């Protein structure tokens, strides 16, 4: 279980996260929904130790998470909006680098893990290819594979469909849903209503750094009238 308690963050005088509270259980997906600049990505960046919070706590399985060591311990994995794959490395090396250098696997073990993941994500024929040879969807899958190679407990995905053809939205949704089913805690920052519609998740609507409304996708579908702001956003009226 991931619990975020009273998390706040300011950039100079601008509040980007204001007393954020939320909990996500193992196997669940939380979607941070909202327009650009409301703090969704910042929240994921705080979890990934790319930003330092001003106050608040992040608790994983009852223990306060030390963000300074969370990356070394591979507790949090991040799929970036533009994938941030290592352009000078091959597809396979993108996966094996952290396995050998951080997780201290042997080259043989790392290669085996990479090959399994590449096969699972349909990229095995590209193992020795440059990143530039991959399509947007393939890059997305490689970004997921690279993150999963380290077996994180929390998976953060920042706008996972924004750099993709809309036709791939369902594929991404299915993949993230499957990963949650396998026991990962999944947090997604998105403004893509189509992605949210394709997920079984808890939705947190964010505005100006605060969570203003939250419910499950099931409840929202059944009783949209109970969640006026979320419903308005989903209808594109926000």
């Amino acid at each position, binding site marked *: 279980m991931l619990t975020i308690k009273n998390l706040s963050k300011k950039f100079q005088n601008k509040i980007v996260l204001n007393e954020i509270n939320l909990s996500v259980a193992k196997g669940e997906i939380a979607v941070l929904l909202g327009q650009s600049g409301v703090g969704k990505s910042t929240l994921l960046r705080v979890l990934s130790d790319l930003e330092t919070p001003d106050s608040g706590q992040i608790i994983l399985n009852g223990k306060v998470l030390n963000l300074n060591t969370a*990356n070394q311990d591979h507790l949090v994995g991040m799929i*970036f909006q533009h994938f*941030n794959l290592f352009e000078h490395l091959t597809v396979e090396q993108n996966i094996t680098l952290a396995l050998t250098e*951080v997780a201290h696997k042997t080259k043989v073990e790392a290669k085996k893990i990479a090959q399994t993941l590449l096969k699972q994500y349909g990229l095995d024929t590209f193992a020795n290819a*440059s990143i530039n040879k991959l399509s947007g969807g393939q890059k997305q899958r490689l970004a997921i594979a690279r993150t999963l190679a*380290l077996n994180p407990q929390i998976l953060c995905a920042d706008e996972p469909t924004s750099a993709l053809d809309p036709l791939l939205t369902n594929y991404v949704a299915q993949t993230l849903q499957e990963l949650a089913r396998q026991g990962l805690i999944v947090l997604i920052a998105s403004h893509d209503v189509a992605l949210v519609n394709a997920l079984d998740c808890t939705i947190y609507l964010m505005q100006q750094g605060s969570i203003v409304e939250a419910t499950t996708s099931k409840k929202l579908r059944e009783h949209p009238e109970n969640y006026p702001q979320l419903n308005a956003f989903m209808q594109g009226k926000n």
Partner: protein
Amino acid sequence: MSIAFIQQTLPLLLRGTSITLQIALCSSLIGFILGTILGFLHSSSSKIAQFFVTVYVTLFRGTPMIIQIPFFYYLLPSIGIELSLITTAIIAIGLNSGAYISQTIRSGIASVGKGQREAAKVLGLSPWQTIRFIVFPQAIRIVIPALLNEMITLIKDSSLASTIGVVELFKEGTIIISRTYNAIPVYCLIALIYLTLTGIVSIFAHYIQSRINRHVNH
């Protein structure tokens, strides 16, 4: 220019060429190592490191090498460091080259996207591992053509070592001229040798660039 004159002078000029190459290669190596260290320091978040590199670069880029080489020639013995003329020239030229290369490396580092460092951090790579495996390999590919251009400059600038008495290609030529009073053929031969050396580096630079391009498109 008679064949006999060429046969007579060419071995002497080639002897000078070997010294020119020694100076160019060794000072390139010093310049590359120093420039890489300074480039990373300049790109770091440490204000002290940035200030130090700025001062260093300003001093070495703002003064002519024809002053720097004799300066080290007189400075080093005065502080108890006795070196050969060639070594003194190599150090002076290398330190000068380091200032230029640091700015080339710095621009290469700046061109590696912030996202690459962030991805490395999230994967748990340490700052040193990020430099070693992510930033440096990408930056160096970007700046290799500029570094090879710097090498071409160093081949030509090595002639300034003659100001402290190093008998490299240019100095060897001036000695021949003072003996034979036959300046134009000797200068033509010297120019031809410099052109051959810089041409080889240019071809190599072109080859490396095409290899990089091929790798990117592979």
